[in-house]
């Protein structure tokens, strides 16, 4: 039995027990309940052929049942694995419940994964049926069919271009539904027995398998039970007071646990409506039309939105831009307080009200966020400025920390306790522990059953007591909020013994728009030093505004004013670090601005634009050593590949700088 | 049938009997028609000049006639000697042409011709309002004698009757002929004239030989301003200088339909057909309809003509391409 920590709002835990006891065993159960209880309420919308088609929960049940019975006609057996591949389309979502009702296991697969990767997943999971969006996916699977022995039926949603395919194994979704219907025509009792079979679903049985893309090695199939998901969803809904009245837009990959929980799990449990966009290209306008009340997006979505806001406003008239900027300042000052229901002085409240009329309201309207009650971001760290920007507009954006293995929720920020640097307090029913090496461990009802056909990985991740290793390093701050600092395997130690989380430091610096990449050093060293790679577009703009003349990237990078600017940024980061006792020792002492852009062509970045640290250590060894010496300048010659494929070398004297006011805790104590 | 015969007779035979029975009157009617035809032709000429060079259908040509005449008369009324007033008026028309080119045409280059037409309708309103504001709305008398025209008339005894020729009418005819001849020479012999023709044929080509489109536009508007002034003097000598002329000037549109938008000979021939035709029709057929048919004869003639030959008398049929 789990040791339950106190509920987030301080209510007695007993309540929760009682509520959880009323939980239904499976999602098909919830489907039946919703079709009864929320019969006339819209369960799903899909923008198709120009308008939003709607299905009430009652319609949904009928559609799903027809498909499910059709699958049964095709011979789907309990335990069979069914791949679901494609964009966020209603029929693919229906497949989950349709398969689960028969005791099968849906396995959503990333639609954009390359054939080889898809082959591995489908083969590993032992897929018998695949439900695909369109011809593209079907073609991909047909090319793999020879190596996939278990794969029998391919079912497609969109019929375009599917005329000339083998109709014995490649079937239309409609066709399968018709099979189901015909079966019912022959035997009307099927409907009742279908519902009866649902009653036999065990709550601890396998509900869904989600393959984690995994940065290293093969994808792993995370097995989640009905209990895992349903309890987590119930708790999450309770935490944010989500009811059947919410609307959300489904646009993130189906195979991602977040989408599965937000657009399927929580929706079924609460009974709220999920809207599918017309196409991935139209998400922005579709979101505006729907105006979701519950919204999730990874940080990059918020970043891109903010960039497009800024770019758009560049073209606005001067007066309007001035007004916009003025009110954003007002929001920046008072918005958070107002959102957190803290008291502000009447003048500020009035100005904020004006801003709401002229800027925030219309802006939220354009973003399609005017009705957002709760918005979450997770997955990576979000820039504090970006985070605050949305909150200051009055959007209740919060952070959460989660994992596929936890059925998402590990921690989340309760309303009114928001800090850009934390990921919140433990979610309901979740226990958190921090290991000695800083690694975060958790235990919750959402903890997965295990990795499919991978006992070894399961055992190394999950302890017999049910604790799960997150692989992330972090700490609980004074307010009881979890802060994630880095991947735990990357966290090092300085010679003075203090923690060195490179990613954490790098991210803090990268949040400044002028800085594109940062590489931090310090493991086994006396202090932290960083390479800074400036963002040419941002810095060039800044240079133009400040009348700084330069001839080349190299020249600009070495410009004293650029160094000054970077220096200021580092000082701010140091202040920030100093305020957090666990990482105060990891303040930056020395830095340099790299004379060239880090480039994938030169092997410095991966093709996905991530820094290849080991390569950099090797390539720029001289520079690193110089950072840990007293030198103020270091000559360096680098081989580079030009855009046209020629190779050559760049030579430069890189300036090394020391940060003013650098103080480690020890030094402070000494003073 | 019995009822029909007199009607057919009235329409198809009686008018011709009347013509033959009083040939001197017929000649008088034709002469009157000829003279007003000349005036229509002159207005149409102003249109053609501008349309040829800039594809602008200048609705304001009529009001320009009134405007020019009013300037002339008003200057004289203010005590300026007639000939100096005439020269000053030419100057005013020059300034007007430049202004129109600068303020209106230059901004509307490459617009659809309907848009350009409407712009000139707007121009009409401005000129009309300005004219009335400055010169007042009352009709004025043209300073015919002061400009050296004879106001007398000569009689021609023929077919046992008398045909009266007003000297001013003769002058009008002569001046019109001189002007057409001068324009002909201008277009074929002078550099600017040839440039104008080049513009009419192909804007790009004109630009490539180093002629500024803007200059050309200013020149043609000035030229048609002078034509307007001459028209105004002639017309004013026959009746009054008043804004009513503006409506009559619209008949030049019918003339253009007959003669084509780009043909100077067409404008002359069309003007004469309309002028003579409407006089004959008014005198010999008008009574059948209760009179006043002059008001619409020209347009209906143009309309009927259009149905049979949409491209005008001198235009070519063009093939539509897809």
């Amino acid at each position: 039995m789990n040791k339950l920590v106190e509920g987030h709002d301080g209510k007695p835990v007993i309540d929760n027990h009682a509520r959880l006891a009323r939980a239904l065993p499976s999602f098909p159960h919830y489907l039946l309940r919703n079709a009864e209880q929320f019969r006339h309420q819209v369960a799903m919308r899909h923008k198709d052929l120009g308008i939003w088609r709607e299905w009430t929960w009652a319609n949904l049940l009928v559609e799903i049942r027809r498909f499910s019975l059709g699958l049964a006609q095709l011979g789907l057996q309990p335990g069979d694995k069914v791949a679901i591949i494609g964009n966020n389309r209603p029929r693919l979502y229906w497949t989950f419940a349709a398969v689960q009702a028969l005791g099968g296991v849906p396995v959503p697969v990333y639609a954009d994964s390359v054939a080889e990767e898809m082959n591995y997943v489908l083969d590993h999971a032992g897929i018998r049926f695949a439900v695909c969006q369109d011809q593209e996916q079907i073609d991909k699977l047909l090319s793999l069919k020879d190596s996939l022995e278990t794969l029998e039926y391919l079912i497609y949603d969109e019929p375009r271009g599917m005329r000339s395919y083998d109709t014995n194994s490649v079937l239309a979704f409609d066709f399968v539904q018709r099979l189901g219907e015909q079966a019912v025509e022959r035997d009307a009792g099927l409907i009742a027995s279908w519902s009866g079979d649902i009653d036999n679903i065990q709550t601890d049985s396998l509900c869904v398998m989600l393959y984690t893309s995994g940065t290293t090695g093969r994808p792993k199939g995370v097995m989640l039970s009905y209990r895992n998901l349903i309890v987590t969803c119930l708790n999450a809904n309770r935490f944010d007071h989500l009811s059947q009245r919410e609307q959300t837009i489904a646009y993130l990959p189906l195979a991602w646990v977040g989408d599965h929980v937000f657009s399927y799990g929580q929706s079924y449990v609460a009974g709220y409506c999920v809207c599918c966009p017309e196409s991935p290209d139209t998400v922005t306008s579709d979101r505006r039309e729907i105006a979701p009340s519950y919204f999730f997006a990874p940080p990059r979505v918020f970043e891109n939105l903010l960039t497009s806001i800024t770019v758009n406003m560049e073209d606005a008239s001067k007066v309007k831009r001035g007004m916009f900027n003025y009110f954003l300042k007002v929001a920046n000052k008072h918005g958070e307080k107002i959102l957190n229901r803290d008291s502000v002085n009447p003048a500020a409240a009035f100005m904020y009200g004006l801003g709401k009329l002229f800027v925030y309201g219309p802006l939220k309207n354009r973003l399609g966020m005017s009705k957002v009650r709760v918005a979450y971001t997770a997955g990576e760290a979000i820039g504090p400025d970006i985070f605050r920007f949305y909150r200051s507009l009055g959007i209740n954006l919060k952070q959460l920390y989660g994992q596929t293995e936890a059925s998402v929720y590990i921690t989340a920020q309760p309303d009114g306790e928001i800090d850009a640097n934390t990921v919140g307090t433990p979610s309901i029913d979740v226990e958190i522990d921090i290991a000695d090496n800083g690694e975060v461990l958790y235990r919750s009802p959402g903890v997965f059953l295990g990795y499919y056909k991978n006992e070894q990985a399961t055992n190394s991740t999950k302890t017999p007591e049910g604790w799960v290793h997150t692989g992330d390093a972090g700490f609980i701050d004074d307010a009881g909020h979890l802060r994630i600092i880095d991947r735990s395997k990357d966290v090092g130690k300085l010679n003075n013994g203090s923690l060195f989380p490179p990613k954490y430091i790098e991210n803090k610096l990268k949040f400044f728009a002028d800085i594109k990449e940062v590489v931090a050093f310090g493991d086994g060293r006396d202090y932290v030093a960083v390479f800074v790679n400036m963002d040419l577009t941002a810095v060039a703009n800044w240079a133009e505004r400040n009348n700084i003349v330069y001839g080349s990237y190299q020249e600009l990078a070495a410009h004293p004013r650029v160094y000054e600017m970077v220096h200021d940024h580092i000082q701010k980061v140091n202040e920030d670090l100093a305020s957090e006792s666990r990482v105060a020792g990891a303040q930056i002492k020395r830095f340099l601005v790299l004379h060239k852009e880090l480039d994938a062509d030169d092997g410095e970045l991966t093709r996905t634009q991530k820094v290849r640290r080991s390569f950099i250590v090797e390539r720029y060894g001289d520079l690193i050593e110089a950072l840990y010496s007293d030198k103020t300048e270091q000559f360096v010659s680098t081989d580079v590949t030009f855009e046209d494929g020629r190779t050559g070398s760049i030579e430069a004297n890189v300036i090394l700088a020391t940060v003013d006011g650098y103080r480690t805790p020890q030094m402070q104590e000494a003073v | 049938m019995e009822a029909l015969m007199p009607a057919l007779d009235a329409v198809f035979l009686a008018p011709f009997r009347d013509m033959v029975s009083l040939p001197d009157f017929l000649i008088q009617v034709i002469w009157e028609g000829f003279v007003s035809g000349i005036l229509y032709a002159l207005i149409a000429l102003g249109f053609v000049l501008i349309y040829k060079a800039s594809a602008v259908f200048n609705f304001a040509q009529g009001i320009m006639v009134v405007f020019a005449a009013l300037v002339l008369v008003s200057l004289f009324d203010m005590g300026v000697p007639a000939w100096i007033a005439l020269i000053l008026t030419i100057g005013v028309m020059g300034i007007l042409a430049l202004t129109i080119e600068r303020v209106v045409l230059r901004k509307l280059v490459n617009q659809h011709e309907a848009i350009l037409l409407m712009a000139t309708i707007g121009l009409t309103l401005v000129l009309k309002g300005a004219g009335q504001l400055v010169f007042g709305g009352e009709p004025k008398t043209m300073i015919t004698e002061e400009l050296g025209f004879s106001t007398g008339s000569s009689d021609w005894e023929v077919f046992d009757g008398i045909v009266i020729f007003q000297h001013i009418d003769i002058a009008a005819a002569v001046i019109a002929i001189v002007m057409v001849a001068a324009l002909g020479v201008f277009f074929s012999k002078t550099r600017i004239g040839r440039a104008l023709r080049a513009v009419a044929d192909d804007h790009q080509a004109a630009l490539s030989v180093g002629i500024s489109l803007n200059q050309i536009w200013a020149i043609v508007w000035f030229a048609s301003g002078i034509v307007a002034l001459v028209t105004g003097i002639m017309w004013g000598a026959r009746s009054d200088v008043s804004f009513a002329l503006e409506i009559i000037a619209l008949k030049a549109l019918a003339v253009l339909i007959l003669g084509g938008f780009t043909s100077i000979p067409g404008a002359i021939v069309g003007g004469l057909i309309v002028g003579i035709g409407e006089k004959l029709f008014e005198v010999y057929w008008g009574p059948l309809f209760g009179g006043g048919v002059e008001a619409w004869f020209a347009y209906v003639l143009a309309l009927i003509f259009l149905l049979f030959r949409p491209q005008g008398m001198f235009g070519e049929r063009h093939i539509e391409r897809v």
Partner: protein
Amino acid sequence: MFYREAGQFKTTYADDQALLPIAQDRVGLIIVLAIAFLVLPIVASDFFLSSIMIPFLVFALAAIGLNILMGYAGQLSLGTGAFMGVGAYSCYKLTTIFPDLNILIVLLLSGFFSAGVGVVFGLPSLRIKGLYLAITTLAAQFFLEWCFIRVGWLYNYNDSGAIEVPQRELFGLAVTGPHATPETRYLIILTIVAVMTLVAANVLRGRIGRSWMMIRDMDIAAELMGVRPLYAKLSAFAFSSYYCGVAGALMVFMWLGSAEVEAFDINHSFLVLFMVIIGGMGSLTGCFMGAAFIWVLPVILRAIPPAFELDILAATMEHISSIIIGALIIFFLIVEPHGLARLWRVGKEKLRTWPFPYAT
């Protein structure tokens, strides 16, 4: 800015194709209609109703008529005044011949006569285009004017040559003639204009309206898509002339009370033309804006000298307003050939995308 459309989504094609798909527009229209129907009759003075609102509505209707022909079907016409005249004279004759016929029916019937005349004068449009067509409409204008003078039957051989509006009642209330109150006349004309505007909007968004626009935009392509130019053009002439005819009938019966041929002369054709240009070709809203602008501007200008106790003749102000309107036409053609309606649409678009300068 005030157009906050987030959350407005369409679940049926009927909603998506509604005349006013945006909720705020619907609310705006309801407010305008409420003011027009409920507030104005109560608060407005007789002068305001009979000298501003009634003529404004008459001209708006005529402008819709001309705009259908010019803005939607692309056929230039300079004969609007005469087509209005046909409506007015028809209405007059109908009231004489059928004295007991309901006046509303008479008003609406009279439009059919001008529609018929419109078709006759539209026939040349099958062979000729653009400016040439404008000339044929001038022919219509002058020929019809002549008819109004010479055909005595049209005005019952009055000595004055004018048509005098007889008194007619509706539900016991005088709606035409000297005893009809401005309020009654205003409300009747408002209702007719509102309904006819709705009808025009409906026709314009359907098959027939689309065939007009096809002919306007690319007549050759339209024909190759199966649109028969004969039907498309003549139906545009008929529909347009019907509107002008009803506007003409309303002008005499609801506003002027009596009229001579001058009421339908070429200057009136131009007046309506200006309304369409300044209001905006191809926009029904523009017709109302253009009518308001062209009609109200001179009224305001006339009111200026007395307000400042200046001793300027009314005629002088008339000339000034002529200059201003002429200059505005040129200005609009240069700066915004689609007139006030486009400015309104651009403004609305700005409000919709606010605070962004354009939609993304």
